């Protein structure tokens, strides 16, 4: 399973988890470490760390007992479940942040056009039940919302091709070159990070590629089976486009009106300039693709290097202007 969620070790998360764990373990003598770790969405190491801490917990100073919980490395045994009173072992209500995190995510996922109808219905039912169980804690969840973008029809075809393990033919628009190319791809998975993308093995470039669904001009499911080579799935949580260290460097200087470049382009550095602008250094495998950026910036910025890129933008602008001169004559 790829794209493991971010989960820092912190005392609050661990306490929250241990409170649920004692309720859970009380009902399941001899539970297996592997099963419990999966049920709680944690690694076995994290679970073992909890099990090391739990025997230090209890109400021994108040005439009660410490929790006598131990493990033989495979199963978990609780020798004195009565140390935790029947009442103290009941499942706890959801906190406001917990209800918000779960409900906002559930509402967002339920709007994904590509979600199967049966799954959407299940999610909507679950959301309503969680809202009811959360009570007041659900209130603040309306103050956060997320919309995923995805192209319904294309999404459905990609999703079907993945589940039926079939190859896809697409016409794909590449903004860097302003061209539409035909490709055959073996789809691996769909990823929604703001926009929705399909990660696939591209048979034309013989490489792993990510395609943004709203740039797919046309799509067809082929009869051939999909056969992507075995590969490690990357963690896409940071950025979908990860420039490599050996990619050529591009330096752009922008005025205040071009500061948005730093928001849209992953970059190595962005240094403040005295006029309120920025000097941005970024890497791209294909600097020519940044001609569009140079043109868009207009008076708000310029390419410092490489000089060929700056020249090509100037030439393109001059050529474009010539058309206006001709037209006005």
């Amino acid at each position: 399973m790829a794209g493991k969620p971010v989960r820092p070790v912190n005392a609050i998360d661990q306490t929250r988890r241990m409170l649920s764990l004692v309720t859970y373990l009380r009902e399941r003598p001899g539970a297996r470490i592997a099963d419990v770790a999966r049920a709680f969405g944690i690694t076995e190491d994290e679970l073992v760390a909890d099990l090391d801490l739990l025997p230090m917990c209890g109400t021994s100073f108040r005439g009660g007992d410490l929790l006598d919980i131990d493990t033989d490395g495979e199963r978990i045994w609780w020798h004195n479940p009565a140390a935790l009173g029947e009442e103290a072992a009941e499942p706890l209500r959801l906190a406001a942040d917990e209800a918000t995190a779960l409900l906002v995510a559930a509402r967002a996922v339920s709007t994904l056009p590509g979600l199967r109808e049966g799954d959407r219905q299940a999610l909507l039912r679950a959301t309503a039940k969680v809202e009811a169980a959360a009570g007041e804690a659900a209130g603040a969840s309306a103050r956060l919302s997320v919309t995923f973008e995805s192209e319904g029809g294309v999404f459905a075809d990609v999703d079907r091709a993945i589940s039926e393990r079939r190859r896809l033919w697409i016409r794909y628009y590449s903004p860097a070159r302003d061209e539409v190319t035909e490709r055959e791809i073996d789809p691996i998975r769909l990823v929604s990070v703001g926009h929705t993308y399909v990660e696939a093995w591209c048979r034309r470039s013989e490489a792993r590629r990510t395609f943004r669904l709203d740039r797919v001009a046309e799509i067809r499911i082929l009869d051939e089976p999909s056969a992507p080579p075995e590969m490690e799935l990357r963690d896409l949580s940071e950025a979908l486009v990860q420039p490599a260290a050996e990619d050529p460097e591009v330096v752009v200087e922008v005025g205040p009106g071009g500061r948005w470049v730093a928001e849209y382009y992953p970059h190595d550095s962005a240094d403040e300039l005295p006029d309120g602008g920025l000097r941005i250094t970024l890497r791209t495998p294909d600097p020519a693709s940044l001609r569009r950026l140079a043109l868009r910036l207009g008076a708000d910025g310029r390419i410092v290097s490489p000089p060929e890129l700056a020249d090509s933008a100037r030439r393109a602008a001059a050529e474009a202007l010539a058309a206006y001169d001709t037209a006005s004559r």
Partner: protein
Amino acid sequence: MAIAKAERLMNLALCLLGTRRPLSKRELRESIEAYLEAGSDDSFNRMFERDKDDLRELGLVIETVENLDGEVGYLARRDSNRLPPITLDAEEAAALGLAAKVWQQARLAGAASGALQKLRAAGLPEDVDPYEAHGALEPRIPVHEAAFEPLMLACRDRRPVVFDYRKASAARPEPRHVEPWALECWRGHWYLAGFDRDRGAERVFRLSRITGRVRSRGTGFTAAVPDVVTVRETVASWAGEIADGTALIRLRSGAGYPLRAKAARVRELGDGWDELEIPYGHGLDAWLVEFGPDVVVLEPAELRADVVDRLRAVAKG
């Protein structure tokens, strides 16, 4: 060895949940090893206050009760801390499992897992792998903006904030005093809607343009919070998605697919060029310039002049 904070919090939680009568601070101090080792009264008091806040943060309702002698006691009553009965079937459980994985922000990822764990303890079925059940879809909610967490808490607690905000084209950030209403993620970016106290009106802010820290302003809201907060419509109008006119352009054959996809009408001119009628909204000039010599604007004159100005700026270098 210092006693782990999680152990201390867990013991405090078990004491407060296990008691039928309020326990005084003195009793609690004597009940928990970490507090006995805390040293001075001051350091114990600080630790105890922080721990209570932390437990409340993860959902525990801790009551403060004064007894007949005027001594303050604490307890976590079962009836206010119990999760109401909830029964979810295997499909519903799998769907929630998928939803709980979408956050990429540490605090919300932790909270979503915590919610699922509480439901697990309450009997949520666990024999379905959410990825199996949902096929190939992996939705993720990105959160890269440092301002997100403080603003999320401020929206939750309805606390006014102040932050330095740099408008899209401004050189310097300016402080903004805002009553934050809601956060919305659209196309992978986070936006805040709220009441701007300096301007006396509703405003939408893009989180990536907030520079420096978000600070709280203790006082409450002064403006009424509307029932429906519309962030997306405002942002769409910035992005030029809301067109208020039509433009006529010439486009080289085969080029500019996205312009063709938006065109209301395309006419082949036959000389290697097509004529397109496209929606004209904010930002169209900058977009058309990207296509360089493959686009020529015909109408309106104002758009044509804007595009020529931009091209001249680039041609000058």
